């Protein structure tokens, strides 16, 4: 936990510092005394303060909790990382390919990856889930989803 707390503290300090540096470039307000930068700079200062306390606590051995370290050999960690990458690819492809195609591909891949290898389920579940979601949003709720490649068909 100690190392994790120190890294988290450093990230907090970096975010706070960025907010303050950007804040100083904002225009000041002569009449109201406090301009657009007042609130963010105040908040960023507190963020830095608590980040420093977190780091100090870590050095003083007062970190709480346990964190299992990242272990790439661990199946769970691998699944987590693969999901993260697959999810990102899915989001990027959603606009060009369209909701229906990208979702079916994503669902098939994810189900297969999580260990569902039954051909029948892989062939039926993703299209059923995708198309019923599409119908619910497009037809019942009148909210549009990205059509992508199927733009002329649907």
């Amino acid at each position, binding site marked *: 936990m100690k190392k994790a*707390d120190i890294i*988290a503290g450093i990230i*907090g300090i970096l*975010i*706070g510092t960025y*907010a303050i540096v*950007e*804040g100083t470039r*904002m*225009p000041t307000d002569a*009449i*109201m*005394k*406090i*301009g*657009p*930068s*007042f*609130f*963010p700079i105040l*908040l*960023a200062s*507190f*963020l830095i303060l*608590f980040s420093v*306390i*977190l780091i100090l606590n870590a050095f003083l051995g007062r970190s*709480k*909790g346990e*964190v299992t370290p990242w272990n790439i050999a661990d*199946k*769970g*960690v691998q*699944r*987590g990382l693969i999901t*993260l990458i697959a*999810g*990102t690819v*899915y*989001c990027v492809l*959603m*606009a060009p390919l369209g*909701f229906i195609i990208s979702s079916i591909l*994503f*669902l098939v891949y*994810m*189900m297969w990856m*999580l*260990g*569902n290898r039954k051909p029948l*389920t892989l062939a039926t*579940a993703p299209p059923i*889930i995708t198309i019923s*979601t599409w119908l619910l949003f497009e037809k019942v*709720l*009148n*909210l*549009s*989803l*990205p059509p992508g490649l199927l733009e002329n068909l649907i």
Partner: protein
Amino acid sequence: MDFNWDLLISSYAAVFNFDILLMIVIGTTAGIAGGALPGLTATMGIALLVPLTFGRPPVESIAMLMGIYCGAMYGGAISAILIRTPGTPAAAATVMEGYPMARRGEAGRAMAMALFASFFGGVFGALVMTFASPIISSFALEFGPVEYFALAIFGLSVVVSISGRSLIKGMMAAFFGLLICTMGFDPISGFPRYTFGLVEMMEGPPFIPTLIGLFAVAEVFNEVQKSGQVKQIKAKLDQYLPSWSDIKYCFKELIRSSVIGSFMGAIPGVGCDIAAFIAYGEAKRASKRPEEYGNGAIEGLAASECANNACSCGSMIPLLSLGVPGDAATAVLLGAFVIQGLQPGPMMYKDNIDIVYQILASIMLAQFAMQIIGMAGIQLFARVVLVDRKILTPTIFVLCMVGAYAMRSNIFDVYTTLFFGITGYMMMRYDFPLSPILLAMILGPMAEANLRRAMVISSGDPAILVSRPLAVILMVLAVLSMIFAVRGHRKVEARLAALGEQLANITEGEDEEGEEEKED
């Protein structure tokens, strides 16, 4: 003060409309199913279902949200009883009695009692809430910028009580959340801040995508790491209502837990999980046979379920009157209200008391819907618990992205959801609480805009902040709530540790029989 019966009756009458009743039924059904699905918490369920309410008029969507909220509270008990996984944190105490009962072959009895206790607590809480409203509305004084600023500070002080194990991390999460909501146009001068040159960021980070990212996508990343199948207890669910002798036996607990639940709910910052535990603890203390607790004491189950539903109604009081949520689920609900153009807070009781009554009426009807749907669908909901996670988890991810995209039809919102999903997952992994971010995103803009407005009024003199008595009271309350929360924190931690051990004991006993494979 006089109770306005006419308004109450007309508000109830307004809710008896086909569209609204339908929304309550849909919401309650979705809520029970969502609460029962393992790996889908009530908070996550609400966040996922909020997009379904976008296109609906406010009263209909709020009716649906109330249905989801109340349904999910009961739904959590189903997975607690059948697979020893509380669907909501508030159902954790239910596991301790419900699961041993199910193992004894009394799953039907436990489910019937859980449903009835939820219904009883819910109706009790809704009544308390209805009759407490005029008292609150008489408090709806002239709220100016200074009071609003103080109210936001008070709401933020609640952060401490919802920040989980580490206060420092809770504070960091809150200030991170507050910083996030300073992105976009400055509320007074209109200067664009921290937009990274993106047009989409001009109005700040979109709320619903952020919420879905933090509370649903993050959970998906967490969920795929677990593997193994949960085994359900095979049981005949042939009981729809608890027997008369069970009701008589638990009646004292039902009343006591309803009172505890409603009262705890009305305190800002006290979540339903805490209420359920206190009610459960009190039931055990008052019991003549405390040794039965932990081995399937039906009155313990009744106490826990009754209190968490009473609390979910009671927590509407601070939510609607102050705009301060008690836990993550109500915080998401608050966000959903804001999306519908309703700003809960003192002004709502002053200007929109009719909507307040309609919300109360919806909650009351949602309890009846819950009892009826819960009885009718008991076999179905018991099966929901068994849905294959290999299909469910990726589907939730798809639904998250759809929900994020649907509101503005903008792919940028999908990326925002993904970003906050990853951020939320990393934060969860390293023990940072997520609810303070949400609370900060709701209360932050209110705090800043009103602070700045107050400063404009006083031409920059900060003394204005202590010039109004109500504002001073709120700030003092904020400080007091911080102090009490810090002091209470250790006690809560000790209690949680004790509970964790108890749960572990139940689990161990089970694992010896080799009924469950779990490899987190």
